[in-house]
Each structure stands twice: as C-alpha cells, then as structure tokens.
C-alpha cells in the first residue's frame, strides 16, 4: 500500500493548487440528535443544530434552500431552512424512515420505511403521501435514475434490488443481490445501478437495460478479515469515471475505476465509515465515520485523505449544498 503524505502537507497542497469554493456540508449525527454544518473550504464545523431523534438519511433540495432529514425515531422527515438553519416543517414519512432520494425534478421524495416493508412516495409541495409501495423486508437503499423514471429500492433481509416504475408505482424487476443490500447509486448516464451488500461484502453492478447483474465487485484488504469489509455508501463522480465505496468497519473508502471495476485504492479514513458525498465542484468526497465521530475529506484528484473534522456523536449521513 502507498504511504500517505502527512495530512497537513496534502491539505496545504490541495488548498494552494486549487482554491475550493466554500460549500456547506450537512452531517446527521445519529446518536447526538444533531446536524453538524461544516464549511467545506475551512473544513471546520460552523454550526450545530438540534434535530429530532436518531437522524440518519439526509438530502437537500436542488436549489439548496431546504435540507430534508430522516428523524427515524420520531417517524418523520424534518425540513431545515438553510438560510436560518431552523427546522421549519416536516413531511409525513411513515414509520422509521432511514434513507430517501429526491426525484430529479425536486418535486417528489421517495422514502424507505424499514419497519413496514414500504417505500413511501411524498409530494413535497403539498406535503402529502401519494402512495405506499410494498417492497421486501427492511427497505433501505434508494436510488433514482437521472431521467427520474426508475426508482431502485434495496431490501436488507430480502436481499433484492426492486426496480420501481415511477409512473405506475409498480415493481417491474427484482434483482437478487448479496446479503444486506444498503445503498443504490445510478451512474450519471443512467446505464448502471451500483448496489452495495454490507454482509455479503460486495457491490453488484446492475445493467439498467437488462436489469441483470453484469459485474460483482469484491474487496480485499491485506491484514483484514473478509467479514470486516462491509460496503455501505456508494457515490459515483459526475463524469462517471470513479466510484467511491464506504467499507464500514474496514475503516476505508474504496476507489473503483468504473470502466474496469477494479479497485484502484483503499483510502484510510475514520472508524466505521458509513455514507459519502461529493462537494459540488467534485474536488472532495466527504465520508462519515460513525465510531470516531468525525468526517474525512478525501481529495478526488489524488485520492488522499486531506483532513478529518470532528462532528457530533455517531455521524451517519452527509449532503453538501449545491451552491
């Protein structure tokens, strides 16, 4: 494995070479019942806000005005106004919301309700539930195709990726993947869906045309037991060339070449790395490290970890404002 540059040097280089614009990253702290707001240029926490109980899934409206947050133990999705950083409302999510995805037009939120084997479809403007779609046991991962026509939900005990037509709200395909699928991420061109399997230790690449698995990515880290490599969050770069996969208790983020499906690097971050988010300029990937209570900024050009920032208790999800 390559030796890492001392973090301060890498951070200095990154900031000198490419002065990044400041974005705000919102991090849900599952145990702390807070959201930490991190300035991505200064790489420091600028504000911490109190939210509902057990905050997990987090996303933001396309105009950057509202953060949506799953307050799982409060059975609600909270709306945070990013101008004031205050909770200004809630959406009727159904029980125990964990993860969700926003439609490309920003009008619809699709929520996975773990306890009820349902995907809840919410119209954001009217704050109404449009429909509940029965899926497999413990729905979790939610991905949406760039054209908004296909929703993919993963069910953790059923071990499937359910392809749902967003017009008819019906399941069209069920693809069996490995144990405990956690996350679904479409490639920006819509050609593939990447589904991580936490207990199975793999990422299945599903062809969006045939709806069949075309490749299964495995991970191998010398000195680590295979059982401790548990893929969770997956993010693919805007140009579609690189994928980042959070490996849970392996404390690393895998960098995958999307043309060869080869792992090009394992980036050591904090403990129990869960979810990931790109900054809008694609310069950094931010990982949430649940057990070390921090987030790590990974420099996308070099795939080096450049800075870790302590946030609240057990950071779970992360989203970066688009502006």
């Amino acid at each position: 494995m390559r030796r890492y540059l001392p973090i301060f040097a890498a951070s200095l280089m990154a900031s000198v070479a490419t002065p990044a614009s400041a974005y705000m990253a919102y991090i849900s702290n599952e145990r702390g019942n807070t959201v930490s707001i991190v300035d991505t240029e200064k790489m420091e926490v600028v504000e911490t806000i109190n939210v509902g109980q057990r905050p997990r899934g987090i996303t933001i409206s396309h105009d950057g005005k509202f953060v949506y947050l799953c307050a799982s133990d409060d059975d609600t999705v909270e709306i945070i106004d990013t101008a004031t950083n205050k909770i200004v409302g809630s959406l009727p999510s159904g029980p125990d919301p964990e993860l969700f995805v926003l439609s490309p037009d920003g009008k619809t939120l699709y929520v996975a309700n773990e306890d009820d084997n349902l995907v809840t479809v919410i119209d954001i403007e009217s704050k109404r539930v449009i429909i509940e779609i029965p899926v497999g046991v413990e729905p979790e991962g939610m991905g949406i195709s760039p054209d908004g026509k296909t929703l993919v939900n993963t069910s953790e005990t059923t071990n499937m990726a359910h392809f749902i037509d967003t017009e008819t709200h019906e399941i069209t395909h069920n693809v069996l993947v490995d144990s405990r699928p956690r996350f679904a991420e479409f490639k920006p061109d819509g050609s593939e869906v990447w589904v991580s399997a936490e207990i199975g230790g793999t990422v299945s690449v599903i062809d969006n045309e045939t709806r069949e698995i075309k490749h299964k990515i495995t991970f191998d880290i010398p000195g680590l037991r295979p059982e401790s490599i548990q893929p969770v969050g997956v993010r693919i770069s805007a140009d579609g060339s690189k994928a980042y996969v959070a490996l849970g208790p392996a404390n690393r983020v895998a960098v995958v070449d999307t043309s060869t499906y080869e792992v090009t690097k394992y980036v050591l971050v904090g403990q129990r790395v869960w979810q990931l988010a790109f900054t809008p300029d694609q310069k950094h990937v931010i990982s949430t490290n649940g057990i070390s209570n921090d987030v790590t900024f990974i420099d996308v050009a070099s795939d080096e970890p450049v800075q870790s920032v302590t946030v609240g208790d057990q950071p779970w999800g992360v989203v970066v404002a688009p502006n």
Partner: protein
Amino acid sequence: MNRKNVPNFLLSLVFLLFISISGAYAQGGSNAAAKTSIEIRIGYLRAFEAELALSVLDIPPVNAGVAGAEVGIADNNTTGSFLGQKFTLDVVQIKPDEDAVEPFNQMVQSGVKFVLADLSAEQLLAIADAGREKGIIIFNVASREDALREEQCRINVFHTAPTYSMLADGLAQYLIWKQWRNWVLIYGSHEPDQLFAEALRRAAERFGGTIVAEKEFEDTGTARRSDTGVTQIQRLMPVFTQELPNHDILLAADESEVFGGYLPYRTWVPRPVAGSAGLRPSSWHPASEQWGGTQIQNRFEKAIKRRMISVDMNAWTAVRSIGEGATRTQSGDPSAIAEFIRSDEFQVAAFRGQRLTYRKWNQQLRQPVFLGDGSQVVSTSPQEGFLHQVSELDTLGIDQPETECQF
C-alpha cells in the same frame, strides 16, 4: 397423547400481503411476474411444559421459539412473494418426556420437509434417525449439548442453538479480557448443570482462567419460590459461599433454575456472578440494538407483543437459513437447499454484525455470543485479540481439529 396445533396467527396477515404484492406485480414487467408457486412447509416440533424459575420474570413465554419461527416465516414470505415461493409453519407440541417420533412422522406424512426441533437431545436424535431416509432436514433450535454436534452428530441436522462450549468460551474470553482470571465454579446436581460446568472447565483451560475452587449445590427438591423465601435465601447463600479461596468472579452452572439466581449480591465476599446468573452468555439478547438489531426487535415486538429471546432468534435464523437456500436455489427441494446451506456460497445476515455460516464439519451455526444481564448487553464475544486462521467465530466452541463428528 397431548398434542395440539398452535394456530399461526401471522399466516393470515402474511397471506394478505402476499396476495396484494403478487397482484401488484402481476401486471408489471418481465421478471417481476410470479413464477409457478412453490410451497415450502416447515414444521416446529416442541417439547414444552410450563416451567418454574427462581424469578417469575425468567419463566419462558408460552410461545418461546415458535414466535421466532413465525416472524421468520413472515420475512421469508415477503421475499417469497417476489419469487413465487410460499412458506408455511406447522406447530406440534408434545410433553418433555413423550415420544417424538410418532408426531414427527405425522408431520412428515402431511408434507413437511423441514423440521425445527425444540426438543431434548434424546428426542432430537430419535427424529433425526427417523427422518434421514425420508430426506427430512432438521434444525436444532434448543439443545445445547456438544455431543449432538460431536460423537452424536447427524448429517440431516443443522444447529442454530449454540453449544455449552460456545457459550462458556464466549464468557471466558470476556473474563480474560477483563483480567478476571481466578474463578470459583458452583454447579448444580442435574445433568445440564454438569455439562455447562464441564464446558466452563474446558474454557478455563483454553483461555487461561484458573478455577480456584468448585462446589456442588445439590437440588434437594425445595420449592422454587415461597412467600417468605427471600429471608431464608439471604442467610443461606453467604454461608454457602463462605469458605472459598480468593477469587475474581463466581461462576454458576445452574441450567435447572435451582440456585443460580440466588447468588448475585448474596455472596460472602462481594464478587460478581456469571454463567447461569448475573452476566449470562446467550445467542441473542432482548435488548440488542446493534448491527441493525433494532429492526428485527421492532418487527418481532410488533408481531408478537413481547421482546425477542434467544430461542426465538435460533428459530428465526433456522427459518431464514431455509429461506435463503430456497431463494438462491429457486427451489423447495430439501436436499438442494441443504446442499446450498453446506456450500461456500451460503451466508445469512442475522443481526450479528457479520455473515453467519455453518461449520462444515458438524453443521453448527457460527455465531457471536452475547453477554448480558437482565437489562443490558454488556459485551459480545469473540473478544478482540482472540484470533483464528479461518474465522474468529471458530474461537468459540469445539473447533475442527478437535471434532469427533463423522457423518
């Protein structure tokens, strides 16, 4: 014969869900359409009699184990609804000393291919031998006797219940990690007590504990509980533990609920208690919320209206193992499913933090051991630093080089 069929109240619910989902996707696209329906019938054969316990809080619920199987069936059916597979549960209850073979044969005759056995070791062996030629696959969800996985092992029996040696090893690793190395062992006079005591002796030797003294607590047949009992116990237990050499912890091997629960806070010198009382090793804990455990706990509580205990989890894992085999092989054939469960491809996610598999040499489920008291999970073993070349879970219980199992 006192046999009764326990109605499966979940089934109707599951069936409704099945109908609604299959209705929804029948109009959908290509591979979402249900294939020809396969029915997979699972039996649950249990020897049960209302038991006494030292504390009324420890009396097992009347549907212990069965409830776990029911929730497992519901989970399998949600998945099965996408694949055209339907799982059913037939529950038959007998008395602890009754013949199990006849009810077993009747179950098999009615079409059951998989049987969850919540039976004594003798009853289990009897049905295993009766079912072998008929191709019936049995899951032992209750018996902890190591011998069932060793000299008495059977090719058609998988074990989701942990063994006495796995439980003892899980506890011992934690005590060593805590550096509580000097143990006193108090064991009961019944056979299960002796088996657990033997497993604790073996664990001491394996992991570097020292049993500085042993003492037997004889069951004289007194009532488990009586109105003024507390006063007497408060005087009795200090005296019983008075002349013990210096020790860090007191281990109780009382699988028969005779004295274990009386030890904590009543010993002559102030020492913690573990084993059958105090810090107990188990395959599940009603308060476990790690590794996604909250989800199964919520699902269980919603359906059953009580917390999930170890035998429920053993049964759930057995049903899910069968379900996983049926999903991956797209078949309801017991020999194909058993073959898959034995293969390298098999894994089941069961809220224990890593994939669970069966040991090929004796078909025992590899699993972590929970250590908890009445309300908290204190730790889970294997503990950090107990290494193994195959799986750290194989540091718990009898390992391949020592096995006496020959199929």
